[in-house]
């Protein structure tokens, strides 16, 4: 390689950056490059390919599951079943039962009986023991459950292994600790359990959302009827096996599978004193209409269109990494995904170049490959929805940049995508896409950033990237979002309450605040 060139020409002091580039282009702010044709570029080619590295543990998924009611597997009275497939390769994973109103009645009957006869009478300390036991079993079986979660939902094994399962266990451990300390939740008042609660969860973090719902409900002394999402019910069935192994009293947790009608029956049933829903804003509104005037407590964790706001003084590579993580984590199937990048105009061009270089090395592939960064889109319907809205972005004049990686032939996959030249009026800037699609907008001043960030029906989360601490505090106070992350994104802890503003819902999950919604 060429090691020789005249040293003297380059022997310039640092304080004179302009002198070092004899090239014609004008350097951008901070002495960083402006894009030019013929400019040096990095080569991300095939010099060193990673061979497939599949996780091979048997997930132990049974060919069929009934409903889990009263601690037992019960055949659905509906007599109907449906197939659960893997979005990774469209193969059938298991056959699941469809619960109808009669099945949901049976589930609530079991939950009521368990509540009155066992769970309400049990001391908090005893309840806590069950929660600890569940948490430990989740840890014991973490690897198996991670494989099942990835197969069922399409998320990369490294995420289910390193994020979903550890967080899932953490939620049970955290709430186990609260079970005998509930009198400290509301100082000066001893709270009491609600009784029976109904819960409906989404398909993006099946086990984790189940943990967010079930752990606080049980810790607070309630019994549960929960409906998992139809495309991702398999790990809930594995969780039922854990409940049996933990010897949880029959009826304390009941799991009913099925579609929208089952969910409507779960939330519309007269028994539950509280309904907790995580899912789309659209369905959330239907439930709110359905339950208006019923006197039931309600918490909603709905959609989002979070802004990730990058100022010109931000540590730029770490901001790039955070923006990438914010939108491509779990294929963008994250309600708090940072799907709108608001970047200060003075660094926008450079920032987008760096994003493009970064997505060039993102690996899209089979969820069970340990090197997969972006897995499969959860379902065919979701893939169609993403494809449609991305087409609208192109039609409305935004510029689409996609990575050029190879996609698997079978299964549902979508290339990591970035839209530039997006304005507040574009659909891709307003609607929740719930896929690996980032919309890039620019701003000039802090006030403009706040205005644009808040100019949305949603308000679940936001990110701020700057080297200046006081600006972080000002932004955090100005952004109408339930969570504001500073110089990081997508960080969760069971002790930290999570929830939204505006059409992103109400009520909080996690922390002391999360307990309040499960107590009277």
């Amino acid at each position, binding site marked *: *390689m*060429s*090691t*020789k*060139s005249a*040293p*003297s020409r*380059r*022997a*310039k*002091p*640092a*304080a004179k*950056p302009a002198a*070092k*580039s004899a*090239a014609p282009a004008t*350097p951008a702010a*901070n*002495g*960083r*490059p402006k894009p030019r044709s013929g*400019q*040096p*570029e*990095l*080569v*991300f*080619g*095939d*010099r*060193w*390919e*990673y*061979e*497939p*590295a599949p996780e091979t543990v048997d997930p132990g998924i049974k060919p069929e599951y009934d409903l889990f009611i009263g601690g037992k597997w019960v055949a659905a009275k509906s007599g109907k079943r449906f197939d659960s497939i893997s979005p990774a390769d469209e193969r059938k994973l298991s056959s699941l039962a469809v619960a109808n109103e009669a099945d949901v009645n049976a589930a609530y009957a079991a939950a009521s009986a368990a509540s009155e006869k066992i769970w309400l009478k049990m001391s908090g300390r005893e309840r806590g023991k069950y929660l600890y036991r569940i948490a430990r079993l989740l840890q014991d079986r973490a690897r198996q459950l991670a494989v099942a979660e990835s197969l069922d939902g399409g998320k990369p094994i*490294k995420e289910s292994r*390193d994020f979903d399962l550890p967080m899932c266990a953490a939620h049970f451990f955290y709430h186990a600790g609260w079970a005998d300390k509930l009198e400290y939740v509301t100082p000066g008042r001893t709270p009491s359990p609600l009784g029976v609660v109904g819960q409906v969860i989404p398909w993006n973090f099946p086990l984790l959302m189940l943990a967010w719902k079930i752990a606080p409900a049980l810790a607070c002394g309630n019994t549960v009827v929960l409906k998992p999402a139809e495309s991702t019910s398999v790990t809930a069935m594995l969780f039922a096996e854990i409940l049996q192994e933990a010897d949880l009293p029959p009826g304390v947790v009941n799991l009913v599978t099925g579609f929208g009608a089952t969910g409507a029956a779960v939330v519309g049933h007269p028994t539950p004193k509280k309904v907790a829903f995580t899912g789309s804003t659209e369905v959330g509104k239907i439930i709110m209409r359905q339950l208006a005037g019923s006197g039931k407590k309600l918490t909603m964790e709905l959609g989002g269109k979070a802004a990730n706001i990058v100022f010109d*003084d931000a*540590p*730029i*590579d*770490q*901001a790039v*990494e*955070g923006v990438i993580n914010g939108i491509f984590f779990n294929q963008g199937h994250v309600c708090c995904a940072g799907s709108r990048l608001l970047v200060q105009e003075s660094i926008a061009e450079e920032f987008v170049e760096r994003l493009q270089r970064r997505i060039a*090395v993102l690996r899209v592939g089979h969820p069970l490959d*340990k*090197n997969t960064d972006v897995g499969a889109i959860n379902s065919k319907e979701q893939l169609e929805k993403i494809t449609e809205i991305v087409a609208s972005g192109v039609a409305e004049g935004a510029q689409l940049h996609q990575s050029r990686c190879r996609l698997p032939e079978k299964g549902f996959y979508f290339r990591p995508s970035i839209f530039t030249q997006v304005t507040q009026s574009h659909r891709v800037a307003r609607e929740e896409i719930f896929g690996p699609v980032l919309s890039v907008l620019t701003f000039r001043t802090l006030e403009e950033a706040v205005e644009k960030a808040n100019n949305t029906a949603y308000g679940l989360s936001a990110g701020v990237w700057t*080297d200046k601490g006081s600006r972080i505090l000002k932004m955090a106070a100005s952004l109408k979002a339930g969570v504001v992350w500073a*110089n*990081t994104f997508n960080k969760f802890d069971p002790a930290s309450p999570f929830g939204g503003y505006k059409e992103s819902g109400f009520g909080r999950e996690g922390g002391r605040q999360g307990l309040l919604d499960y107590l009277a």
Partner: protein
Amino acid sequence: MTIAPSALRSRTRGSALRRLIDEVGPVDAVGVEERAAKYTTRSIKKGSKVWGLKTAISMVDLTTLEGKDTPGKVASLCVKAMHPHDEVGAPPTAAVCVYPALVAAAKAAVAGSSVKVASVATAFPSGQAPLKTRLAEVRQAVADGADEIDMVIQRGLFLAGELNAVQDEIAAVVEACTEAARLKVILEVSELETYDAIRAASFLAMRVLRPGDFIKTSTGKTSSNATLANNQVMIEAIRDFYLETGVPISMKPAGGIRTAKQALQFLIAVKETLGDEWLDNTRYRFGASALLNDLLRQLVKEKTGAYQAPYIFSEAAESY
């Protein structure tokens, strides 16, 4: 270089280091460490592993830097460098790295092979000698046949804010190397303390280096050496400098990389940050000694399916 650093400081606000950080951009410690941790979750198997191991072997600067080094010890190191383990087709290492007094011995030992002789000069490892003395040391090492010079920057000057002086010294060593030798500039990252300072120092050095010259993390003589995170900060600086100027600077993490697994993680970082062109021993090196035998052990295991006892592999150097 007509303005004295002190005069410059009096007319502009803030320290020279702070101004340089403002110019090249800051680094967030939590973020860069998270990025680095992601490389450790990659799973490299079979053919990719063999390619990675062989490439890593070809990037080793096999090093001995001890007071008790002798021409005999250096000669045995050189044979190890030329023939690490021919039974499994292990390539020769990139270079041997020795003290200046042993350059002539090393040069004779590697004659006719592809293995280069690198020498730590400039009052290694502290750099605390007069510039004149350090330059003389470099010239002598080059005269004795060194193909590569590993210099240390004066961390004292850097921390005192005399950045121009640090840069002038590097430029002077570049000249002392002449066309005959490539230069590696050791930043001694553990003594610079912050990632901001490591990034700034990388730019400071690169601006006076020639294409193919190196920046290097450590001497291996302090408590903490190359880590994935400071490697990341430096290769990102190399990337930014290349995209800005077209000048490709090479990288050498040194010290603390003892296992094949670690080496592969560093290579993954290179692949995903700098791309294919840096997966080559003209652009990337490992300063190590204990690492080589672990790379060989893993390579034999890939071929035979079994781990060999440590005594199967020849000893050529003690750890650093």
